[in-house]
Every structure is written in C-alpha cells, then in structure tokens.
C-alpha cells in the first residue's frame, strides 16, 4: 500500500512538471489557436541561456532577469516574423511553421551556448524526505510549489490586470475583441512572451533535474497528451491533465510494465488520452471542439 502511495505521489509530482510545459501551450493556443510545437525548444533555449549565463559568472538573479528579457524578446520576434505573416493560414500550416521554428530555436540555442551537458544546481536538494511511510523528494515539493505559485500568479494576472483581461477577451471572441479596439498582434506578442516565461520556469526545473541539454526539447512530447486530456485551451485542464497523466503513467509502468516488458511510459499517456477523447472529444475542460484545418 505504501508503495502504491509512493508511486502515486511520485507520479503526481512528475505530472506537475508536465503541467508546466503544457501551460506554455495553453497560453498560445487560447489566444491564437496555434499549437506551438516550439514550446519544447523554448524550454531548452531558456534553460541553456540561463545556465550559460551563470557559468559566465553572472549572479543568479541577474542571469534570471537577462534570460527573462531574452525570452520576452524572443516571443515578440516570433509573433512579428512568423505568426503575423501567417495569419489566416490553416492551423496545420501554423503547426508546421512552429515545427520549423523549433529547429531554428534549438539550433540557435546550441550555436550560442554549445552542445555540452550542463549541470544546473538551483540549490534545492533532490533527496527523499519521509512523510510517514511515504518518501517525497524535496525537489519535487519545491517544484510543485513553484508550479502552484506560477499558476496562481498567472490566474491573478488574468483576473486582475487589464492586459490579462485583453488576453481573455481575445480568447473568448476575436471579432468582438477587434471591434472594441484590442490589437490582436499585441495580445499575441504578450502570449508568446508569457509562454517564454513559462518555458524559463519549466526549463529551470527540468534542467535541474535532467541536466541542461538537448533532450530538454523533447519534453514537449510529454505535454501533448496532457493537453488532450485537459483541453488545449484550459489552464486548469493543463494542471489536472498533467497530474492525471503523471499518476497514470507511473502506476502503469510499475504495475503493468513488468508484464509487458516495460517501456509503457512512451505510449500509455497517448493511449489513455485517446481513449478519453473518444468519450469526451474536447478534453476535460476544453471549451469547444476544434474543427479541422
């Protein structure tokens, strides 16, 4: 029993990490309907930039701020040079463009900062702490906390600021948003910049856990089933979906894996998401069904 709890808790906590990546997708999808495959590359780019800056002896806070600024600038550039010219194109074309974008970002990140594996120490010990019979890594707890803080901050941002309001308005009804005088391109640029910020947080946490290196960009593949489960346009869905996927994936690997030779983690999330979709085609929290490109 306690082992099951261990697995479950472990799964939920790793699910938090998935949610972090999924969040970046949701921000962009909600406002512009683009499924941004480059989110993973942005995670890599953010983490690599940050870690390289610290390795160049910049203080933690300064590195963080500089990286933040770079991510925001990157978001703006993407809006200006990729999305804007592609407006009114089919969503599959936009998706392919973000795939191309991911090449560019990955290439640029490694060209700038090299291809070596960097260790990233955020000063949070990754050792288990006992809570009764359950052992939880301190790092996981901190990660969960950071994720929760970020979701809270985003929620607050959306609920209380006028930019957040604009953001929600665009997500709700684009034509009405234009009619009341909102500039779509501004909102999109903000969405991309925010996605960059989320990528930075995800990159730091994932990077601290895995080392900062190329395969960080593949975490995007973990976010897709989360999105399907939670709905592409729901922040709450990204969180709940992440937790669910994490828990299901880990318990499946531990309990079913041994009977089928292991390695179920690669696909179980997708198959669960697929099964779920057949019952609820718009995800847990999704607002509307997406029509084909």
């Amino acid at each position: 029993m306690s082992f099951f709890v261990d697995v479950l808790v472990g799964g939920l906590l790793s699910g938090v990490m998935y949610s972090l990546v999924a969040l970046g997708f949701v921000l962009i999808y909600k406002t512009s309907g683009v499924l941004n495959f480059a989110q993973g590359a942005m995670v890599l780019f953010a983490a690599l930039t940050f870690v390289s800056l610290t390795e160049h002896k910049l203080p933690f806070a300064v590195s963080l701020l500089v990286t933040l600024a770079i991510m925001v600038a990157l978001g703006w550039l993407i809006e200006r040079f990729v999305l804007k010219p592609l407006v009114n194109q089919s969503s599959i074309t936009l998706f392919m463009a973000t795939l191309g974008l991911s090449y560019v970002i990955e290439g640029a990140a490694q060209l700038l900062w090299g291809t070596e594996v960097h260790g990233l120490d955020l000063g949070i010990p990754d050792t288990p702490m006992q809570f009764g019979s359950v052992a939880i890594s301190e790092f996981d707890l901190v990660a969960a906390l950071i994720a929760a803080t970020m979701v809270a901050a985003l929620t607050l941002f959306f609920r209380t600021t006028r930019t957040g309001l604009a953001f929600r308005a665009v997500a709700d009804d684009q034509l009405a948003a234009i009619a009341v005088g909102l500039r779509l391109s501004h909102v999109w640029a903000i969405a991309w910049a925010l996605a960059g910020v989320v990528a930075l947080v995800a990159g730091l946490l994932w990077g601290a856990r895995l080392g900062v290196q190329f395969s960080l960009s593949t975490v995007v593949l973990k976010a897709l089933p989360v999105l399907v489960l939670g709905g592409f346009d729901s922040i709450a869905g990204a969180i709940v979906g992440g937790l669910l996927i994490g828990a299901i994936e880990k318990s499946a690997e531990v309990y079913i894996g041994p009977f089928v030779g292991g390695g179920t983690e690669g696909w179980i999330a997708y198959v669960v998401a697929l099964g779920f979709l057949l019952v609820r085609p718009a995800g847990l929290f999704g607002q509307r069904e997406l029509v084909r490109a």
Partner: protein
Amino acid sequence: MFSSSYKGRLMPVLLASAALALGGAIALPSFAAPDRGQEYFPLQSYRVGPYAAGGTGFFGGFIDYMNLINMRDGGVNGVKLTWNECETEYEVERGVECYERMKTQGNPGPAAMNPLSVGIAYALLDRSTSDKIPLITINHGRTDTTDGAVFPYIFPLLLNPWSEASAMVNYVAQRDGGLDKLRGRKIVVLYHGSPYGRETIPIFALLSQKYGFEVTEIEVPHPGNQQQSQWLQIQRIAPEFVILRGWGVMNPVALKTAQQVGFPADHIIGNIWSNSEEDVRPAGAAAVGYIALTDHPSGTEFPVVQEIIKTVYGANKGNLDDKSRIGSGYHTLGIINGILNVEALRIAQQHFGDKALSGEQVQWGFDHLDLDDKRIAELGATGLLPPIHVTCADHEGAGAVKFQQWDGQRWVTKTGWIQADRKLLRPLIEASANKYAAEHHITPRNCAKTS
C-alpha cells in the same frame, strides 16, 4: 491590416538563394578533398543532438591524436594523416549518407570507418565488408563480430558488450569475495532502449543462470530523460547492485533519480558508456560514490595526453573548445581510438610498405594489431589502455577493464585490470556469428591458415 512588409518580397529572395545554393553546391568541392598520398580517416561524427557530449569528446580525442602524429612525427612513417567530418547526429540514415559520401573519397580511399554508433555500425555491416573498409566499433558494436572469421572487416576492439557484462559480474563477485557469493543476490540491469542497450540482455540472463543471482533487466526508453518509474521499480526490488548501461543524458538522470528515490550511488555500477566526466558532472552531488567500469581511465597525467596538451593545444590546434574536458573519459577514449587506428596503419605499413594504404590493406593491420606493455609504454599510454592482441579469429583482442569511483571531482581508480570470462563467451559468440554467416551466405575464412 495584417499585411506584412516582408512577405511579398520573400519568394524572389528564396528563389535567388535557392539558385545560389544549387550553384554553390555544384561549384564548390563538397569537402576539402583529402590529398593524394595521405592516409584518410573519414569521421562520421556527431557534435549535435542528444549524444553530442559523447561525440565531441570522442572525435575531439581522435582528431587531437591524429594532429599529434602529424605535428610531432610528420605522420606515420612520413604518411600524413588526413580526415574530414560528416555530422550524423547519431542517426542511422545520416550515418549511411555520410558513409556513402565519404567512402569514395581519398586516394587510395579511407583507412577505416569509426562511426561510434551501434545503429550506424549495424547498417554498415555488409556495406563496409563489401567495400573492404574496416569498421571500428571500439568498446561497442555487435558482439558476435568479434569472430573475425565471419566478420573480417568489423573490429569491436578492446571490449565487446558481452565481455563488458561478464567483467561487471566478475567485479561484483570480487567485491563480495568470490563468484560463489553471487548466489541469491539481486541485480538490476538498467539499459538504454537501443540496439546498444539490448545487446547484453541474453548474456546477463545466462550469467545469472550460471552463478545463481537474480537479474531484472529494465529498459529506459531513448533518450532516457524519464526514469522515475524505473527507479521506483528498483526501489521495490531492492537489489544489491544496479548495473547501469546508459548513454548520454540517461546517465546523469539515472544518478539523480536514484538519489531521489534514495538508492545509494556506490551500489550503481556504470558500464563503458556511463563512465565519463560528462556523465556524472551534470548529476552533481548525486554522483558521488558512483562506480563505473572503464578501459580508458580519464586523466591528464598520461604522457600521451601531456604531449597533446603541449604540442597540439600549445599550437592552438586542439579540437576541444572547452579545455577543461581534456583528459575526460570520452576524450581519452578518442585518443585510444586514435592510437589503435594509427598503430594498425603502422603494422600494415610493415607489411605493405610505408605509403598511404587502402582500407583493405589497413584491415591487415587491424587483423594483426598487437600492443604489448612495452609498446604501450613507448606510446606514452601506460595505464591508459590494456594490452591488446587482435587476431584473425579474435577482433576484440583485450577484454580487460578497471573500475573507478567518482569522488565528486574526479574518477579514482579502484582496481587493476579485471578480465572478462572470455572462455565462457567465445562459444556463444561463434554460435551467433555462424548463424549470421548461414543466414547471409557467408563462408567464414579459415583463420588457422592466415595467422
């Protein structure tokens, strides 16, 4: 309102650059073509992608050593070494393309291929045999290619995967006081989800049967940045040892995840591709105490490494951007790979004369590669690699390893050379090789005659 200023001008620019690119590709030579009379080593390297750290270290070391030979000795018996690189990203298709592109270059053609990828090596198995170019898979590759009678052109030098597995089991036994102590022990093998990782599945099963320990083999999907459930499973099994057959990012992640579930690092034993500084540094404190097997200990104290630092890096011709990586595990392996390639060439030259040789001729050199302690000392590599004696039938030639432990700063060697149980393995290797020969209609050459 969305019309974008540069959109309209894009197509002409694209077309013009396409024309330019096409023209450029045709007009420019595809490589700085190797000069006539030089010994050509095509490098199917990878400096990008998930395994870039391994690639840059290994190929850096290889190139550094070749540079050393050229700068210090003016080449091998007057024959300069030359090389160029083709990026594979560790992907098979790209490896094949590189091979096809490079195999026709050089005069008299490539000396040997060193792709450092099991997947690529598999795809090149019959190609390089039919093209008569030696294919070197140092410390990796397909185990049964050790049988040089069936695979004359394939050389899993120093240590094939089965030897490696056997040596690891032997080390565990030695720690506990003998092979008979293994009975009833629990060992988990955590392997990389690739042909390389799977290569040893049957051999661990065999060894566990023979020595009576319990083995659980768990796969980590490529590239290996997700291991939590595997380690939870390990936690539940609670084995005495975890044998880590990792590669690239899988290694630090394994160590970090082990720490996360509270599995002690000094009971994790890494294999030959989990033993470099690049594998442990990113894991930080989680790696302290971790043990790994090696036949290419890291360090800068070896004379040959010192000479590379002095001659090559002194002249600013070093290949590693990050000087702190000089003497790291991947780098020394690259240097060793350089030594073996160069020595094979040297031995072949004794047979064919001091000139640039073809792949077919260099194969003879590899087939007769024999470095004893004395020769290794002359090369300034004492302690860096075990003695190696390759024969027509045995393309591994060594099968000895040391074990080292990470103290947080550097690797500390814990043992002398420990041998694999090659007698046990040999019949299996031959059986497997013969099966391959039968399937592919190969008539094995008669090694009794040639050697």
